[in-house]
């Protein structure tokens, strides 16, 4: 039994002059929920579509469930569940008809009713697809990915564009899958999503994995205890240079009007910050602290925000 559900080595893919994937490595053990976190255009979708056998890599090796696309495509298709970004299902079909169609493609799998129940669309089983909300459509998309009782499920940006409540419902669905032991590989550019759902995360930027680990270990690697965010009144100016010299400050960044400081000891930094603001005759309009997140990890690795692009 291969311990790795996915084994990707030195993967490369370019579109014309643009290098989408640049020597990427990934090893995902069976049973893990693995996240590819990165901004749009980082190469996540290209990577995942190569793993799904929808794109051919220019170079590198891809082993999925111990099999290769070139030789085992028919067998692999039976064992994978795929949810693509931007698939729009046929408007005129109902939920049940759509699921039944996808179920018919697989030799084995749960019954149509079971699949619909898993994504909690029972009440909508006879509703046309065009009458579904964004979140319900996305759950239908996941339902179709589960139609063949897959060993490995790929979810490409499953919650992009959804309202908070729909996101939370989808997260519960993914957590349920994870509990059932299905291996899941998901891409996202939401750090809270990756943090909540994934056992391990690869942070991807410019076609490469720039950090890998559990959410907790990635955040710990910052060495920061807290992130302090503050803003001053309109028209006033707080120099980043001055802020960076405050005691306990590891890194700073300016995000619009907001200064974000990664600090090793907030009890030292905050009084000094307040004193600095008072000294310059500025008014403090915002002050808050939070524990560092994956967003902070990404920013300190790349100098950019996840959602800047």
């Amino acid at each position, binding site marked *: *039994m*291969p311990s790795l559900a996915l084994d990707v080595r030195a993967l490369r893919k370019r579109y014309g002059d643009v290098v989408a994937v640049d020597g990427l490595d990934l090893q995902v053990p*069976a*049973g893990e929920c693995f996240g590819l976190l990165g901004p749009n255009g980082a190469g996540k979708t290209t990577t995942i579509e190569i793993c*799904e*056998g*929808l794109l051919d890599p220019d170079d590198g090796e891809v082993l999925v*469930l*111990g*099999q290769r696309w070139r030789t*085992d495509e*028919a*067998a692999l*298709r*039976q*064992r*994978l569940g*795929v949810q*693509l*970004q*931007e*698939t*729009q*299902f*046929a408007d*005129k*079909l109902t939920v049940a*008809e759509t699921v*039944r*169609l*996808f*179920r*018919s*493609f*697989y*030799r*084995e*799998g*749960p*019954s149509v009713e*079971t699949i619909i*129940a*898993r994504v909690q669309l029972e009440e909508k089983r006879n509703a046309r697809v065009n009458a579904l909300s964004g979140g319900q459509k996305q759950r239908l998309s996941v339902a*179709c990915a589960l*139609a*063949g*009782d897959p*060993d490995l499920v790929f979810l490409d940006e499953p919650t992009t564009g959804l309202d908070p409540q729909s996101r939370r419902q989808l997260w519960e669905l993914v957590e349920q899958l994870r*509990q*059932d*032991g299905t291996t899941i590989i998901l891409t996202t550019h939401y750090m809270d999503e990756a943090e909540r759902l994934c056992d391990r995360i690869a942070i991807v930027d410019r076609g490469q994995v720039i950090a890998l680990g559990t959410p907790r270990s990635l955040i710990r690697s910052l060495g920061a205890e807290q992130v302090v965010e503050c803003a001053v009144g309109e028209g006033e100016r707080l120099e980043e240079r001055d802020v960076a010299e405050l005691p306990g400050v590891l890194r700073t960044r300016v995000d619009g009007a907001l200064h974000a400081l990664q600090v090793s000891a907030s009890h030292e930094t905050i009084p000094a910050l307040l004193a600095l603001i008072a000294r310059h005759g500025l008014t403090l309009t915002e002050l808050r602290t939070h524990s560092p997140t994956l967003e902070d990890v990404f920013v300190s690795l790349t100098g950019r925000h996840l959602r800047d692009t």
Partner: protein
Amino acid sequence: MSTSRTSRSTRPAAPPDSRDAAPPAAAAARLSPMLQLTLVRFREFYREPEAVFWTFVFPLLLATGLGIAFRSRPAEVSHIAVLAGAPAADSIASALGRDSSLAVEQLDDTAAATALRIGRIALLVVPGAGATAEYRYDAARPEARTARLVVDRALQRAAGQVDPVTVREALVSERGSRYIDFVLPGLLAMNLMGGGIWGLGFGIVDARRKKLLKRFIATPMSRAQYLLSYLVMRLAMMVVEVLVVVAFGVLVFGVPMRGSLGAFAIVCVVGTLMFGAIGLLIASRARTLEGASGLMNFVMLPMWVASGVFFAATNFPAAVQPVVQALPLTAVVDAMRASMLQGSGLAALSGELGIMAAWLVLSFVLALRLFRWR
């Protein structure tokens, strides 16, 4: 594969959730992908009211309109006038009035000039002195020339002219030679073309645009079955379309069906498959509905004009005839007309069927080669 499948059994004991509750004999109720794909095609069609209208109602409306516009009419009556006030006006008007194909009135100078100018009368007779008369008419107008012949004949006879040759008239209006007989097979063929090209083209391009094709190839679905489901739907649709249009033509207008039904059915099936293959080819790469619809019009427009749906394709100059005759729609129109109106059998239709088969194979092979699933 068997080794990795064991991963399921080595999972930590999962709660007995609904997934495991699925009967292990789910394969017993195995859904047929071909059936499901075909059902989807039908559902997508009949849940689209516009598609139903264009496929079934539109050809009937068109046939009715054309049937009424070009119905066989009784001989026309020519409206003419005699200039009032002239000495012989009354006698000439009553002499002409005896001819049933003339409607005669007497008008004064200005009224006559106006009536002539606006075309209310075709000709004005101006009686002259003694046995003379003047005809005023526009020789460029066919009805004026007809009126000139009829008026002159009536006038000369009234004055005593005798026909040197005795003739007898036998009037003919044969079924199969009227315009409706000519145009109905053309409409039928045009309908098959529209159904094949639009029906397949839009469906497939729409699925590509929605990334649904890409989603399908991420499953074990057979690509051949997917494309086949469109052809199955087209064939079934074709049966209904042909039945509706032919029944309408036969029952309402008495259009003849002289050829064998078998040969006619073969023309319909081969024609449908050919247009389906052409639709597939048009849809093989287009990513947007706009792009596809431009391509479809580019392909269909020349055939609407040149393939002899509404008037005989032989009207085009001899130099372009080889091209016109090789067009897919020309072949279907000609074959349908030959079968319905002349009762041609398969042997007589082999030329058209050959052209259709060639387009079918060529388009299908090219389409499969070019087809883009993403």
